[in-house]
Each structure stands twice: as structure tokens, then as C-alpha cells.
């Protein structure tokens, strides 16, 4: 027999397949307007010095079901918030910010830390992201990292 290891056996049973769409969680789609509104509101909070409000807002509405473009837009918003907090506080204050988040928000924060590390603008601020990462994992343990890896709801 020829190279049987390369035979795509799934092709013979198309109806039994799980498509990528089927694996996505059943959640409402996020529109561009929603994300822009959040971004605007977050900037208002930041200008008023309400840092934790801005962070919580950003992390409460992650666009799980949305186009890549919308997801990237929101990532930029989160990045802006993280930079702003870091620039206005000293390193040890980051812990208190992380502590004020609930466990869902902490999970989302870790997801965005990884995502921003993969962007070109994030890589220029590697030190900043790593200090956020260090302070977060110190408090949350390994759980959020495992959930970042296993969660099908990607940001």
C-alpha cells in the first residue's frame, strides 16, 4: 500500500466532523461600535485618573466572537490601559491592581498579556508587559496560564 499514514481518513466521513465554528462557545457577537465605545470610555477613565475602573471595563468585555480586526482593536485599548497604569504608578502598585480584579478578569488579563507580547508594539514594551505578567502570576498562580492555553474563547 502507498503511504497510508497520509490518507485523510476524515474525508470519508464529512458529516461526523466538528467544524471550527462548532467548537466556538455560544456567545453573542461583539460589534465594532461596542469596542469603540469601550475604548472611548476607558480613555475618559484614564484621563480622570480612574485607573482600576478603566482596567476592569476593558477586561469585562473581551470580544470573543468577533473579527480579527475588532479583536486587535480591543487589544490596543487594553495595551493603552496597561501602559497608562504602569507609567503613573510604581512597580509594586501593580499587585494591588491585580488583586482588585475578580478571577475572570485575571484570566482575561493574562490572555491579553500574551496577546500583546505577540504584537510589534508590545514587543517594544517587553519590560512593561513582563512586569505586569510577573505581578499577575505571583497572585493568581498557574491557573490563568493554563486557561489561556486551553480556552477556546480567544481574544
Amino acid at each position, binding site marked *: 500500500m502507498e503511504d497510508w499514514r497520509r490518507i485523510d481518513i476524515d474525508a470519508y466521513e464529512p458529516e461526523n466532523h466538528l467544524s471550527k465554528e462548532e467548537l466556538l462557545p455560544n456567545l453573542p457577537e461583539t460589534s465594532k461600535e461596542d469596542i469603540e465605545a469601550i475604548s472611548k470610555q476607558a480613555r475618559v477613565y484614564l484621563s480622570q485618573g480612574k485607573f482600576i475602573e478603566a482596567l476592569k471595563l476593558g477586561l469585562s468585555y473581551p470580544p470573543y466572537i468577533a473579527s480579527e480586526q475588532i479583536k486587535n482593536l480591543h487589544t490596543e485599548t487594553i495595551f493603552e490601559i496597561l501602559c497608562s497604569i504602569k507609567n503613573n504608578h510604581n512597580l509594586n502598585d501593580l499587585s494591588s491592581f491585580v488583586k482588585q480584579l475578580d478571577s475572570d478578569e485575571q484570566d482575561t488579563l493574562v490572555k491579553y498579556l500574551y496577546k500583546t507580547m505577540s504584537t510589534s508594539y508590545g514587543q517594544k514594551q517587553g519590560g512593561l508587559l513582563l512586569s505586569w505578567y510577573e505581578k499577575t502570576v505571583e497572585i493568581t498562580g498557574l*491557573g490563568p496560564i*493554563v486557561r489561556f492555553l*486551553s480556552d477556546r474563547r480567544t481574544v
Partner: protein
Amino acid sequence: MSAPVIYQLGHQPIKDHTFSPDRSFLAITKGNEVELYQVSSSLTIKPKLFTILKGHDKTVTSVDISPDGTRILTCSQDRNALVWEFDGNDYKPTLVLLRINRAATVCKWSPDGQKFAVGSSDRVIAVCYYEAENDWWVSKHLKKPLKSTITSLSWHPNNVLLASGSTDGHVRVFSAFIKGIDEKPEPTVWGSKLPFQTLCGDFINETGAWVHDVSFTPDGNALGFVSHDSTIGIIYPEGEGLAPRSIINVKTQYLPFKSFVFLSNNKLVVGGHNCNLIVFEGDESEWKESYKVEKQKDLINDIPERKDNDDEEEISSHQALNMFKQLDLKGRVNKPSNGADGSKALSTIHQNTISSIRLFSNNKVSTSGIDGKIVIFTV
């Protein structure tokens, strides 16, 4: 609390293990084979290997012993399941007609030992029973709406309901009622009319991550599962056709859990990639971590213990030679100055993932690990 009993049975991974109901022998999977060990009642003597079951030609994925202790069930990636019976001299296998085209991943006897279920990556669960006229085990398939690999199975105490966990993050409860074998079951919280293949419940975890293990509570009125997102879920159904009364999702800060058992309706013990057992307690309003079975160092903050003078200490040329020999032979470095504890990397007994946990007695559980250990813990 008595000290854990540790058996190091070779160095190959043990994917699954099970003790016979009277605790007189132990079956473990090892590569393509299953090894049977005689266990002393005092547990202090190292188990003695007395038989190797050779019949599969790919990795054995699961092993289970029937409730009366006479039949050993094994299944393997070679797409077969075998039922082994002792004929006075030796264990003889009977092939099961599974009719699946991909690996069998998990097998479980029903509580009365009349039938068993085999999960597979062929997107079916084969429910198997004995057909006397042909003298073999035949199967009926649970198919819909399965579309992914089955990782775990659990029988309800009534012998009819079967729970499955799969890699699409779903936990499902099916009826595996076989006409002519099962008595008509009493109605339960999961449903009352139960012809074969009835889907009595379909739940998904929050993240959609792989479900690694699933189990009914001892009373059968709730269902627990552990997933690859380091969470534990427990479902309390309200009744037929109604939304569940409560779904508990416990997020933890550990590495993912591979296996768990209920110690009672309100207490469970989990273990997995974090190499330690952790006990959780709760009810339908909340579940919480109550304690770790072994003391464990934090993997993030604590680096492995070193002696203070470690760096200064010079090693002799003889020790250095041994070190390089070790490196050459085993591919690892043991700093000679560390002595005995140098080889122990983790602070727990298991040095690698705990692959399966089984109830041993009222307050004891047995675990098997990728490190080739079987350990009996008091919890």
C-alpha cells in the same frame, strides 16, 4: 493519618490501574501489556508480578476489573477490547466486537458487572454485553450527538445511565439501557423514560477545554468533571427536561487535573499534572478546596532546595567522573554533593503526572503515575 504506601513498578508510564474488589491483586497498564501483581493484605510487602496479559498490539489505554473480581477488561489503541477470564491455569482473552475504526480510549464495567462501556476516538461509545448463544461480547453504539474523542466514562449506580466526557468540552449523560439485560430503572433526577441512546443531559464547560474525567456522585444525583483548564465542574440536575438546579465551576490555580474520585457526595479528591492530590468539599451552593494531601512547594516561587554551601563545595575528580558517566548513561545530571535528594526534583511523591485515581477503601485512594509509581494515600 498513616503514611502513603509507595510501589515503584518499573519506570514506564502507568496510564491506568485498578485493584481487584477484595484488594488481593492489582492490574496496571504498561505499554502494550497489562501486568497483574499479587498484593499482600498488610500492603507493606512490594507487590509480586504473577501474570502479564499479552493480547494487544498497541498501547493499552484503560483497564478495569468486574465488580465480582473474575473478569479483567482491557482496551487499547489497537481498536480492540478484551475480556480476560481465569480458567484455572491462565488468563484467557475473549475478543469484544466493538466495531470501531479508531483507538479505544477508556473502558468501564457497569456496577452490576453485566455489561461495560468502551469509549473511543471513533466518536462512539460501545456499550457491550454478553451474548450467550454465540459466546461472545457484542456491542451497541451510542453515536449521537458525539463528534469527538471520548476521554472518560462513568456509570450511574442504577446500571443504566452512562456519563461521558470528551475533547470538545462536553459532558453528556446517556441511557445505555439494554433490553433483556437491564431491569426497567426507577425514575431519577436525570429522567424517567430511558430507551437506549436517550440523551439525558448535555453540558459544556466554560472554556471548551478537554474534559479529562467524569464521575457521578455515589448517590448518582450529581455529576462531576475535571477539564484541561484546571477547573472542576459539578452539575446538579433539577429533573427531566429542566435546566440544572446548579452548575458549580471551581477555578483553581494549579496545573490541569487528569482524574478524580468522589469520596462522598460532598467530598472529592483530584490529581493530575500538579503531581499532588487535592481534596475539595462542598454542596450544590459552593465547592471549595479544603486541603492538599501532600505538602507541596509552590512551583512558581520556590526553587528546588539547595544546601547553603552548595556552590562553594568542591567535588573530587572521582565524583566528577561519576557525574559525567551518569550524564552519558542516563542523560541527566545529579550533582554528587546533593546526595540522595538530588534525584528528587519535586516535593511530592509522584515525580510526574498522576494519570488515574481510584477509590481504595473508605478513606484511602490509590493513584498511578507517568513515573511508574502506584501510591495508596490516606485522605
